[in-house]
């Protein structure tokens, strides 16, 4: 068990098993993704300050968009960095 291998030997790259993560906003019943809640938004940015991709966050398209808008608002108000230097 464990690793799923591609049926044909040639295309092992494409067939990564897709595990669907539960959408946390549906789980916690959050209806409005607030730009002021910057600690919650931290979960959706990388340590360089970039917005995490949908395939990483596992959000629904709608929530992913709302998170993106919220992060951008939070950046404008200096709650989150545009670039986190290191």
């Amino acid at each position, binding site marked *: 068990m464990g690793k799923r291998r591609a049926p044909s030997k040639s295309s092992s790259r494409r067939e990564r098993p897709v595990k669907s993560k539960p959408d946390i906003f549906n789980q916690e019943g*959050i*209806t*409005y993704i*607030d*730009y*002021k*809640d910057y*600690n919650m938004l931290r979960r959706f940015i990388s340590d360089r300050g970039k917005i995490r991709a949908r395939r990483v966050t596992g959000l629904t398209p709608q929530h992913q968009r709302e998170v993106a808008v919220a992060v951008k*608002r939070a*950046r*404008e*108000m*200096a*709650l*989150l*960095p*545009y*670039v986190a230097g290191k």
Partner: protein
Amino acid sequence: MLIAIPELDEEQVESTLARFRTVVQRTGGEAGEWNIWGRRKLAYEIDNRTDGFYAVMEFTAGERTLNELKRMLRVSDDVLRHMVVKLPPDYAQSGQRSAEMAETAEVPE
């Protein structure tokens, strides 16, 4: 939400915030209380400043209020940055979170 410059003392902040609140009321809007987050570190420098004084207020506004308020915010030297956001109609239910956030806002970094 607005960020006031950190150089102001408490009294000056109060009067600045009160001024914007009266602008809303005078032009026919309904202003809630200021939710004061206090001084916090900015995520990046703005005008060579590393921290700012954050405050959030909810209000209702027509076009007249909005235009006047935005103009005042832009012109005021005490305001480092501001943002007016339209809230969704069901915001009231999820609104209790902002009170919790205000308490954690002053954690120094």
